[in-house]
């Protein structure tokens, strides 16, 4: 069941390469993602899935798989309407790349072998580069080049980190040396410490580049700013979660080796730095898409802090992973509608969005309220849980710092978002209005986030509890 889940989008991608019609390709995208979501649902309904040494489904991968699949389904739906607008540019590259991207993300989520995990994450970089270049102008070339080069180098460092851990096993006398996760976890106490620590740092830097933690985030505003909105949503909600999962795998290993506190400290520092950098950049940010990119940096920082604190905060962080991904989906897709309507994403041109494009403008405002942690949306619950965890452990300074930064972000982001959404209607030069196909997906995401804020389904809670148990020291 696990292998078909990876192969399904791949087959759809192959079909899309040979399919001669525009509509057929768009349809394949929806069918592929719907099939993926369906199979994910079936898999998650089963209490235990028999894995292989290569692929498996533990609580962490269940959680990330659910998020990625759900987000991709919404974005695929949106893509049909989006690609209809851009018929001239075609979807011959876009659809296969999107499907390969989904397949690679699934592989990364299910991988139980560090080599395979690395391979899958690298493939996501390659599959998403053409997506960022979709608009084919100078700015998108620049963004694509930075993304491709920086992420490739980052990922190469992660590979080196994985090799360091393998070498640590060799030096520690583990025989046979195997980079399979369970084998490594079992052998963790024997690993040579210096190599394990170096390996963790390199993995954190490598996958941290992919995830966009400061100070390794500099490709992020460019790539998110120039990529089409639905690609931005997939990167900010899906890919970052997958990269975070890769870091969590390394954290599991450090925990098993008894060096969890060190790893958590590193995550905590990078998380605080990310929040600070993002908060500074978001104040007076004139570009609404770059604003969202910095918001993504901020929330990656929050995830890192949550896991870095541990216990209740880990639970909050994993819940926040779900909330962040869905909210980012709603935000990026609604901003894409605004950008298309105004033919601009600059604050001096986007004005009076609610009066001009009522649904997309309102969704943008709602998404802003959600992502900054206003009740009654889901992120409020998860941020509250993280903060409770932080204060509960007596880390008052960290908690206060987070509160201050969250307030700065709220004010900074609020100034931009309110300027863009409030005010009298503007006469648009473009023919794009709110249409059902491009409005429904972001609406769905925002409603889901709202529901998650009001009511947490019991299966989700137990899934997150299981997942956070994997990240705690078990011995």
């Amino acid at each position, binding site marked *: 069941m696990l292998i078909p889940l990876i192969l399904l989008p791949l087959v759809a991608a192959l079909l899309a390469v040979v399919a001669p019609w525009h509509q057929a390709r768009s349809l394949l995208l929806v069918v592929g993602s719907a099939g993926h979501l369906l199979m994910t649902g079936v898999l998650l309904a089963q209490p235990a899935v028999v894995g292989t040494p290569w692929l498996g489904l533990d609580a962490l991968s269940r959680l990330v798989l659910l998020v990625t699949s759900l987000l991709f389904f919404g974005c695929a739906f949106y893509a049909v309407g989006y690609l209809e607008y851009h018929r001239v540019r075609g979807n011959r590259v876009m659809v296969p790349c999107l499907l390969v991207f989904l397949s690679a993300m699934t592989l990364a989520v299910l991988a139980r*072998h560090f*080599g*395979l995990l*690395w*391979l899958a994450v*690298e*493939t996501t*970089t*390659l599959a998403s*580069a*053409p997506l960022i*270049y979709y608009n*084919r*102008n*100078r*700015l998108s*070339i*620049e*963004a*694509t*080049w*930075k993304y*491709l*080069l920086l992420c*490739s*180098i980052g990922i*190469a460092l992660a*590979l*080196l980190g994985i*090799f360091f851990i*393998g*070498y640590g*096993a*060799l*030096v520690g006398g583990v025989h*046979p*040396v*195997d*980079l399979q996760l369970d084998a490594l976890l079992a052998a963790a106490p024997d690993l*040579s410490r*210096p*190599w394990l620590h170096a390996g963790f740092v390199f993995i954190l830097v490598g996958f941290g580049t992919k995830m966009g933690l400061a100070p390794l985030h500099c490709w992020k*505003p*460019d790539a998110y*700013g*120039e990529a089409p909105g639905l690609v931005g949503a997939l990167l900010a909600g899906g890919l970052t979660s997958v990269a975070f999962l890769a870091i969590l795998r390394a954290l599991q290993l450090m925990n098993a080796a008894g060096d969890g506190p060190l790893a958590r400290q590193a995550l905590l520092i990078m998380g605080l730095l990310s929040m600070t950098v993002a908060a500074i*950049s978001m104040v007076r940010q004139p570009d609404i898409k770059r604003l969202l990119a910095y918001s993504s940096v901020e929330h990656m920082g929050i995830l890192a802090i949550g896991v870095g604190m541990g216990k209740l905060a880990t639970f909050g962080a994993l819940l926040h992973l779900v909330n962040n991904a869905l909210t980012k989906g709603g935000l990026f897709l609604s901003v894409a509608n605004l950008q298309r309507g105004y033919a601009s994403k600059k604050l001096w041109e986007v004005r009076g969005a609610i009066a001009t494009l009522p649904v997309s403008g309102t969704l943008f405002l709602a998404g802003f309220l959600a992502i900054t942690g206003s009740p009654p949306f889901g992120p409020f619950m998860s941020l509250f849980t993280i903060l409770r965890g932080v204060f509960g452990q007596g880390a008052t300074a960290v908690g206060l710092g987070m509160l201050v930064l969250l307030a700065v972000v709220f004010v900074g982001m609020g100034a931009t978002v309110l300027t863009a959404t409030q005010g009298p209607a503007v006469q648009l030069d473009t023919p794009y209005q709110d249409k059902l196909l491009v409005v429904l997906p972001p609406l769905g995401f925002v409603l889901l986030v709202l529901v998650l804020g009001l009511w947490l389904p019991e299966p989700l809670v137990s899934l997150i509890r299981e997942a956070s148990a994997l990240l705690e020291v078990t011995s």
Partner: protein
Amino acid sequence: MSESLLANLLLLSVILINFFCLGSARLVACIRAIAVQGVVLALLPVAVHGLCAHSLVLGLGTLCFKGVLIPGLLLRAIREVRIRREMEPFVGFATTLFLGTLIAACAFLCADWLPLAAAHHEGLLVPVALTTIFSGFLLLMTRRKALTQVLGYLMLENGIFIFAVLLSEALPLMVEAGMLLDLLVGIFIMGIVINQIRREFSTISTEQLTALKE
């Protein structure tokens, strides 16, 4: 003994190629040098682990990808963009060469300090891997042309490959093949992007790529 002698000779030639790339302005020559480095790396697993199925297949794969296909892609890219020389690097060639030597010296000194397995204390694998990785970084940082940056990335990957030879028993062949394939596709996409950069800006200098900033 002859095997380790061969391995050491191969590793020394890797270092010489690093220096050549750091000091040369001619892009075609640099790409050829990286191709030769790929061929040398292909021989390395056989030289270190002896003739066995794993090292033979890995060597053949490396030969095809790093020795032939990837340099071929880069040569094609360079033919399309019609650029021959790296002009005005951020740091002069002599300085880069000097820094490269410094890196090599540091790598050899530091390798003695590292907690290596007993079998690897004598070998050159670790210091050469470190030298190649850092030389790749140096190339990435000091050059303007997008193509030279790709060469730097390739050198970085080559350094990681040398380190991977230490633990080839831990890496299943499938994963290694996948890594090579990913590298190839990556270079292919980078080649396309370089071509697009040339088409839009009529240069492949990454200096032009500065419109996106705060």
